[in-house]
């Protein structure tokens, strides 16, 4: 690999960065407009929906397409990733294709970024390929691909940021400062989590460097270059902050302030100590107990397993300084990985699924202290495990130093596909379609009651949102209810039909007399159609008994036109 000309090396790197996402998302490449990468019960549908919204309803921040008739705030519900919908969603004719392309682009950018970081640290070209693979194909990101959370895949900005920050520390130049600012801005636009990750990286690496060398923490040349970076990043980030501030960021912060008192905690609110080295296959869904013995199926879980190959090569990389590599950045990266791992493990140490207690006391981790000293941290603390992306970054940097030959790259990719806790081939969701949905799309205007759409159940929600990208008509749901706000979901607590089809334990229509009254109420609000999938035969039978034969039924979906209240009553 070292014998290649620079141009040939860049070509190899780019080809590898294109191949890795194709492999990790396989079989999506066989049908990129008909298959969405990600689990049907995770938040894939929501991300595809945002792409569709960006093309068909751009700037409609508050839309009655969701939570009809009251409407929902798109920024509040799905505003974490602004960049993807802006870059791809706004022009791509297929929202499914846009989502798949965005996911693939982020994986590829991660490969290139981690490879670049490895080279900046002094790794070989082969090591750079291995580092790129270890980062982008980490089980952590594979699981986020399964969840459909592209805002976590956009942690691809982290290695670019880290490499540029290290280069800036060595040779402070305004151009590098501007590049750092541009990466920060793009990363922040791509994910609400990235600014926290970037801040952590910046503080730990610069703090470590400052502690290692006498003199000012920010030497004048470095400060000047940083100033250029701040000037570059300030505009987009200020605009984004203003957008979020105007769309309920304060309420989100207030809502998440109870993260320490969640009982039971969300399955993805912490990383277990053993989970970092636990290669067992993921179990979906995670079952959460509810009051009264009921349970809730939680689909967007997490994987923080680091991978045997990456861990082996990372440990080898720890000794890299013996080969004359810079000692300072490696210590800093080690510190960064440790700090991120501590944050990812949540408020207290858990081992094997249980809180570890010493003398009856749980062992406190630094997350609550960070939240106390830096309150905005609570925005990310509810899903603290996501700081594992910074751990993966640090590990991949060491992989880049531990692996010297390019052969490690395919080995790591093979391990990521065959021995990862996340299943391979990638889990995909078929894009909805068919004669019934086409007929509904062509039907006169009116909101659609999609049943069942169990409240706060991502499965039903994702499917309903995907359906909306086909039929284009408003629907009654649109997101996690507590995120949407009380006013938005008030109808769910007042209308027995809506409550019935949103019930967590067995969605069903109420008795015919009650259904007729409340369907009449919904008609009065603008609902004109009832859409039921074939996998809810009970609801289809109830609907047929109440409303007669469906207007269209293609075996996958059936829909009924709701009668006017006078006719209904």
């Amino acid at each position: 690999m070292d014998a290649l000309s620079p141009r040939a090396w860049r070509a190899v790197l780019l080809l590898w960065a294109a191949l890795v996402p194709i492999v990790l998302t396989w079989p999506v490449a066989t049908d990129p407009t008909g298959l969405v990468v990600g689990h049907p019960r995770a938040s894939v549908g929501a991300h595809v929906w945002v792409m569709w919204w960006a093309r068909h309803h751009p700037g409609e921040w508050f839309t009655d397409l969701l939570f009809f008739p009251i409407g929902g705030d798109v920024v509040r519900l799905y505003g974490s990733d602004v960049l993807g919908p802006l870059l791809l969603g706004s022009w791509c004719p297929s929202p499914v294709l846009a989502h798949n392309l965005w996911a693939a682009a982020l994986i590829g950018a991660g490969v290139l970024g981690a490879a670049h970081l490895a080279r900046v640290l002094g790794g070989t070209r082969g090591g750079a390929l291995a580092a790129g693979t270890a980062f982008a194909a980490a089980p952590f990101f594979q699981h986020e691909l399964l969840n459909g959370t592209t805002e976590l895949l956009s942690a691809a900005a982290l290695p670019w940021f880290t490499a540029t920050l290290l280069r800036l520390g060595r040779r402070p130049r305004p151009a590098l400062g501007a590049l750092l600012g541009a990466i920060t801005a793009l990363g922040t636009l791509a994910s609400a989590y990235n600014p926290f990750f970037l801040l952590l990286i910046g503080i730990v690496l610069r703090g470590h460097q400052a502690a290692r060398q006498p003199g000012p923490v920010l030497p004048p040349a470095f400060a000047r270059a940083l100033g250029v970076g701040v000037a570059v990043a300030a505009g987009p980030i200020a605009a984004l902050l203003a957008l979020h501030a105007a769309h309920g960021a304060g309420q989100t912060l207030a809502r998440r302030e109870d993260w320490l008192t969640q009982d039971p905690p969300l399955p993805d609110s912490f990383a277990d100590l053993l989970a970092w080295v636990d290669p067992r296959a993921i179990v979906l869904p995670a079952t959460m107990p509810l009051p009264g013995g009921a349970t809730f199926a939680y689909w967007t879980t997490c994987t923080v397993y680091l991978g045997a190959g990456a861990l082996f090569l990372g440990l080898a990389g720890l000794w890299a300084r013996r080969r004359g590599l810079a000692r300072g950045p490696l210590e800093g990266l080690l510190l960064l990985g440790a700090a991120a791992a501590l944050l990812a493990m949540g408020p207290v140490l858990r081992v094997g699924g249980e809180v570890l207690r010493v003398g009856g006391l749980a062992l406190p981790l630094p997350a609550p202290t960070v939240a106390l000293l830096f309150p905005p941290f609570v925005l990310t603390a509810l899903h603290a495990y996501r700081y594992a992306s910074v751990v993966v970054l640090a590990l991949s940097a060491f992989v880049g130093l531990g692996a010297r030959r390019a052969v490690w790259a395919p080995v790591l990719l093979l391990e990521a596909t065959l021995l990862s806790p996340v299943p391979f081939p990638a889990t995909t969701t078929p894009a909805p379609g068919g004669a019934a949905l086409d007929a509904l799309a062509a039907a006169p205007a009116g909101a659609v009651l999609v049943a069942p759409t169990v409240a706060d159940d991502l499965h039903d929600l994702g499917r309903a949102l995907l359906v909306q990208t086909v039929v284009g008509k408003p629907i009654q749901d649109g997101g996690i209810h507590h995120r949407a706000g009380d006013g938005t979901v008030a109808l769910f607590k007042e209308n027995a039909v809506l409550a019935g089809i949103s019930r967590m334990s067995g969605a069903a229509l109420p008795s015919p007399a009650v259904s007729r009254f409340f369907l009449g109420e919904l008609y009065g609000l603008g609902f004109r159609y009832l859409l039921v999938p074939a996998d809810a035969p009970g609801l289809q039978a109830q609907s047929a008994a109440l409303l007669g034969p469906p207007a269209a039924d293609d075996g996958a979906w059936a829909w009924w036109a709701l009668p006017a209240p006078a006719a209904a009553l």
Partner: protein
Amino acid sequence: MWFLCLALARAAAPVGGEVELRLAVDDRAARRLQAPRVQVGAGEALPLVDDGTAAGDIAGDRIYFLGRSVPRTDPLRLALYDGDALVGEVQAVLPLSGPADLSLKTEAGPPGVRVDTAAPPIGVAGEGDRPDRLALRVEVDDRALHRLRSPALRTSQTGAEGTPLRDDGALPGDTPGDGVFVAGLDVARVQSLALEVVEGGAAVGRVQVFLPNTGEAEVKLQTVDTAEGLALLSEAVATGAVQSAAATGSGGEGGGIAGLGHLLWVAIAGFALVFAQMRTLLQHRWDQEVAPRLARLDRVLDRLDPPGPAA
């Protein structure tokens, strides 16, 4: 400057429309009210209740409540009557947005009634002192079936006659005669509570609700034409602040040892920073000052006593 800003904001605020008024009248000291009513502006006099049906109300404690949407005027003029006798009048300034909470207190002498600025927040009265209590608002939707006339709500914590479910608009947020009956209960905090709706002494239906860990909650029920008679429309939803883990004895694992944890991690971070800086400074000083002198000393010693050939 702040007063100027407030004045400007107030001047710019629209006057008109309606405001959700939550009124509490404390008659515990003066004890002069028998059938209190309040007239808002030029409207009709509305009855105040002390039967435990309002959220946060304790029946018979001589703190009377009223919740009602009233025309927004600035200032808001209220006249308190006991029966037909005028007790006193007050004027209040409404907030620029949101519901208006107003606490009054009766006086034995003139002016009869005054604004009570020291009263606890309405609806969460004494919540901070009562971590074991929950103000529960219960709505029963009978719009579809029209089965209820003068229903009552029974729980294991209320008497046999229960708490009246009202549809006369006396409780905050209730629309009179709309078929949705409302009651406010003040209950001991329990994990779950059985609610039974009775009509003319006969049970209409019964449901079990799980209560959230807050000072206030709301639960919505509906009458159904099945054997159950009553169904849960929505689970009990928290409408007040979450009780602290310390107060309830549950909640986050970090709660009890949070202070120790903060101390520990701040100490670790501080020590690491100081240690690293000290090490760097010592290393720098060694490299810049001590090491050169040692080298010079070494050279001097070598000159004075050159090393001999190895044995």
